[in-house]
């Protein structure tokens, strides 16, 4: 039986709502950002739901103070605002302070990549992976569907420290029909192939699977891997999973060549001595103002399935030669 696709945030917030009923230590803070499921939290736990208003700096500061008092805090806002508007608050009172104080604080950023399709560059988010992975002590989690997103809740409760959850704002098709991936490993190999592996995160996993399907029709059987724990994946296991490939294609809904998973994989294959060449799929150029569907926007900036398919095909041919 197939699982009905849901929004990541709704599934995750529902897990929080359920847990708040028996765990008095959970606080939910929001920078005036809602969702239908959030209405349940507001109604049922008004004393542990705090709307700080449109004030992300204070969202982080208040959440840090609550976490220092022993509460498990979930802070919630639109992705670019909960990361960039308050980056120094995050650096100082979460990343730095958690070096010496036990704190469990989870930033939920909704609107990864182009998921706020018509809202333009202010609400779209192409820099957060780079920025958040730069912070020591932070765990950066980037799920591709609601099943894996919901499953991350258990990790948030059981693991201390600051975390950043990068959620898509749209309802995406279900990928993990058979159950959520292993959180201890931090990635999941969906397809084993050759000679290249598409290493994707978030929404781009859907594109990767589509591209793999398209390439299969022209005789290439590429691998596809979901990298959802960008900061704490099991390095030995990832090395083993990638060791047979001579080409690695990184795929992210963020700027190309600016410190995202492309940089991370460059560092990884260099450090680990993997004998693989790289192709990086990411947003080309700078900020754009064109309107269109997400698919159209993706094709314009070099991360759409058609563009990726032809790029990967060229890449494979170059490897064979």
């Amino acid at each position, binding site marked *: 039986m197939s699982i009905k696709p849901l929004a990541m945030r709704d599934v995750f917030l529902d897990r929080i709502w359920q847990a708040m009923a028996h765990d008095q230590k959970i606080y939910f803070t929001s920078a005036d950002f809602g969702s239908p499921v959030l209405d349940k939290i507001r109604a049922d736990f008004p004393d542990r739901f705090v709307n700080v208003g449109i004030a992300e700096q*204070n969202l982080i*500061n208040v959440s840090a103070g*609550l976490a220092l008092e022993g509460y498990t805090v979930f802070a919630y806002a639109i992705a670019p605002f909960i990361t960039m508007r308050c980056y120094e608050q995050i650096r100082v009172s979460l990343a730095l302070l958690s070096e010496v104080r036990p704190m469990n604080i989870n930033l939920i950023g909704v609107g990864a990549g182009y998921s706020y399709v018509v809202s333009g560059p202010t609400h779209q988010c192409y820099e957060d992976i780079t920025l958040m992975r730069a912070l020591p002590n932070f765990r950066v989690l980037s799920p591709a569907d609601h099943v894996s997103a919901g499953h991350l809740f258990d990790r948030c409760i059981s693991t201390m420290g600051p975390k950043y959850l990068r959620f898509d704002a749209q309802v995406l098709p279900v990928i993990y029909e058979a159950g959520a991936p292993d959180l201890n490993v931090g990635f999941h190999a969906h397809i084993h192939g050759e000679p290249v592996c598409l290493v994707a995160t978030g929404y781009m996993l859907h594109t990767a699977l589509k591209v793999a399907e398209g390439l299969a029709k022209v005789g290439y059987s590429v691998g596809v891997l979901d990298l959802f724990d960008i900061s704490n994946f099991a390095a030995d296991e990832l090395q083993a999973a990638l060791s047979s490939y001579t080409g690695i294609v990184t795929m992210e809904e963020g700027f190309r060549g600016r410190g995202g998973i492309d940089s991370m994989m460059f560092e990884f294959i260099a450090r680990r001595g993997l004998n693989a060449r790289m192709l990086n799929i990411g947003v080309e150029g700078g900020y754009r103002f064109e309107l269109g569907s997400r698919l159209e926007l993706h094709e314009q900036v070099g991360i759409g399935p058609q563009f990726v398919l032809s790029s990967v095909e060229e890449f494979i041919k170059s490897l064979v030669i």
Partner: protein
Amino acid sequence: MSHRTVSELREKAHWVWRETLAIHRRAPETRIASSLSTIEIFVALYYGGVLNFDPAHPLAEYRDRCIISKGHGSICMYPVLADLGYFPMEELQRVCHTGGFLGGIPDPVIPGYETVNGSLGHGLGVATGMALGLKRKRSDSSVFVVCGDGELHEGANWEAIMFASHHKLDNLNLIIDNNGISMLGYTDDIVSHDGLTKRLTSFGWDCWDVDGHDMETLQAALIKMKANVGKPKALIAKTLKGHGVPGLENAPLSHIINPKPELIDSLLEQKP
């Protein structure tokens, strides 16, 4: 927590003043002027029967939380904390030196420091979250924040000020070291805080103005403020940056001026 007489408090403040100068003599990297304006405030808080604390258990649950938001302007806390037993007095000899933990800007690895300080404008917001959490726990502990007036230019403070009054956080006590000078001059010439008390009052806070170097009124005001209920509270303490040091006191560039070693030596030679 023992109450001391006003003359004992004055004596302690003078000792802290001398020790702070001596630290700066050994470690000129420390910001001296902004540390000299807060001495009476910290002495009143820690020796004047205002704060509950336990040097043997710096993070004891029952403690009052004292957030020192103007981190670099709190070098005077080093002798206070050492004297109270948070760490050995010998540590004062190696401020800013290899192997020590008392830096030019205090870090939360120092027993007695609660949060990351020095990057300005963070303390009040974090304190507000702590105050909310303590209310939820039905704790009797209070939260105190010491910040500078120049620091109030950081907008995040005003997000916290609005939030605190909306949530009626009457366990939150803000002390503003109103020395009127930030790094490049008088705050009145940079971006004025004119009518600061009125501004905070209009944001829903209970406020008191006090002479930040008058130990007697300062101690009384802090005790009164702590007991006050219904609203978040602010004490606007009028102080002098570089207090007591000729050439430094109230000088517009005092933040970045280092008094000459010979001047410090002559001040330290004077009898208390």
